[in-house]
C-alpha cells in the first residue's frame, strides 16, 4: 500500500482527548483546520447539554427535576430514545439509568452520547472534498476513505491487559470502531440488571457503519459479561472482537456481515 502523508491533531473536550487524522487535499490547509474547529465546537456544545460532571448541564438539571424533557433541546429526546432502544435490545443489561452512590437512580446517558456526538461532530469533516479522515473520541472512532487509491485506515485494538500494546488490527476504509472496557477508568461499567460489573470479559470491540451503533453495542455487549460474543453475533451488520478476562479472544461476525479481507 502507498504511504499517504497523514496529519494528526488532538484537543480535549468532555474530559477526553479527541484525535483527528487527515490525509488528502485539505489535510494541511485552512479549510481542513476550519472543519476541525467546527468538529470541536459541536463536541463542546454537546458537552454543555449532556455532561454528567458539570452541575449546570441540561442533563444534570433534568435529573434533578429542575426542568422537564419539554424544556430540553430535541437532541436530548433523541439520545434518550437511543438509550431506550439499546436497553430493549440488550435485555436490560444496558441502561442510561443506573443506581447512584446513594442508591437513587441517576440519569447517565454517557454510554450513548459519545458515539452519537462523534457522528454529529464528523459532519464538517465529511464535507471536505478529496480528504480522508479518522476521528477518535477517547478511543472510539469513525473514519472515511475516498477513492480506490488510498489504503484503508489501520485501526489497532488496545490490549485490555496491557493498554500500551495492541492485540488486534482491523483495516477500515469507511466505518466505525468502538471499544468498551475498563482499562483506563476502573470498573465504571455495570450490568444494569444487577448493578455490578460484568464478569469474564475484559473488552469488547465493535465495528459497524455508524459510531452511534458501534459505541452502544460495545457497551451493551460488555455489560453482558460472558454472553458478550453470543449477543454480538446476533446483531446485524456488526463485526467484533472480544477479549476475555483470561486473555483469550473471540472474533465475531454478525448476520449480514460478510467477511472482506481488506488490504
Amino acid at each position, binding site marked *: 500500500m502507498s504511504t499517504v502523508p497523514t496529519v494528526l491533531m488532538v484537543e480535549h473536550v468532555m474530559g477526553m*482527548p479527541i484525535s483527528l487524522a487527515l490525509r488528502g487535499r485539505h489535510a494541511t490547509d485552512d479549510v481542513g483546520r476550519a472543519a476541525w474547529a467546527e468538529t470541536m465546537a459541536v463536541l463542546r456544545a454537546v458537552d454543555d447539554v449532556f455532561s454528567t460532571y458539570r452541575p449546570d448541564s441540561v442533563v444534570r438539571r433534568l435529573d434533578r427535576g429542575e426542568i422537564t424533557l419539554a424544556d430540553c433541546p430535541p437532541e436530548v429526546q433523541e439520545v434518550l430514545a437511543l438509550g431506550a432502544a439499546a436497553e430493549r435490545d440488550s435485555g436490560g443489561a444496558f441502561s442510561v439509568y443506573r443506581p447512584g452512590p446513594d442508591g437513587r437512580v441517576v440519569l447517565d446517558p454517557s454510554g450513548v452520547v459519545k458515539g452519537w456526538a462523534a457522528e454529529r461532530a464528523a459532519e464538517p469533516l465529511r464535507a471536505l472534498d478529496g480528504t480522508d479522515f479518522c476521528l477518535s473520541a477517547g478511543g472510539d472512532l469513525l473514519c472515511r476513505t*475516498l477513492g480506490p487509491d488510498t489504503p484503508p*485506515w489501520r*485501526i489497532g485494538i*488496545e490490549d485490555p491487559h496491557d*493498554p*500500551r500494546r495492541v492485540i488486534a488490527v482491523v483495516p477500515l476504509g469507511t466505518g466505525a470502531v*468502538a*471499544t468498551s472496557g475498563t482499562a483506563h477508568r476502573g470498573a465504571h461499567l455495570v450490568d444494569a440488571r444487577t448493578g455490578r460489573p460484568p464478569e469474564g470479559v475484559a473488552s469488547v470491540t465493535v465495528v459497524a457503519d455508524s459510531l452511534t451503533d458501534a459505541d452502544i453495542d460495545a457497551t451493551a455487549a460488555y455489560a453482558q459479561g460472558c454472553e458478550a460474543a453470543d449477543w454480538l453475533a446476533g446483531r446485524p451488520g456488526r463485526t467484533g472482537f472480544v477479549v476475555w478476562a483470561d486473555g483469550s479472544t473471540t472474533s465475531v461476525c454478525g448476520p449480514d456481515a460478510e*467477511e472482506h479481507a481488506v488490504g
Partner: protein
Amino acid sequence: MKRIVLWFMSTLTVVTLLFGYHTSTSASGTPTSVLAQPSSDTAATSGTGDSSGSSSSAASTVTGPAADTRWGPVQVQLTVEDGTITDVTVVEYPTGNGKDRQINARAIPVLVQETLDAQSADIDMVSGATVTSEGYLESLQAALDEAGL
C-alpha cells in the same frame, strides 16, 4: 483488496464495453466491433471511433460508456491494435459513496500474533477503553499523535 476490486470492475466494464460497443457501431454503420473482430480477417481494419482507413498496425482508442457499479461509475478507455487490446486505462473510477460503508464496515479485527507496540503495528489510530484526558499521556494514542506532530 482495493486493487483486486478495481481490477475486477475494470474487467467487468471492459466486457460491458465490448458488448455495448457493438450496438453503437452498428448504429453508425461501421461494420465491425472490437468484440466481433474476426481473428481470421487479419487484413480488415476495425473502424473504431477516431481512426478511419488506417492500416492494420494503427492503434485506436475507444472510450466506453460510464458503467454504474455498486461502488459508483466506472469508465474505461481501451487501446486496440490489430484487433487486440493493448492497453486499458480507467478514466473514471468510484470516488466513494455511501455504499463504500457497506463493504468496509464488514472488516473483522484480526488478532496479531504477539501484541505489538504502536510503531511496529503500523497503525493510524487506536480503539480502546475510554481514555480520559488524565490518562491520555500514557495511552498509545498519545504516542501516535506525538509521532504525527
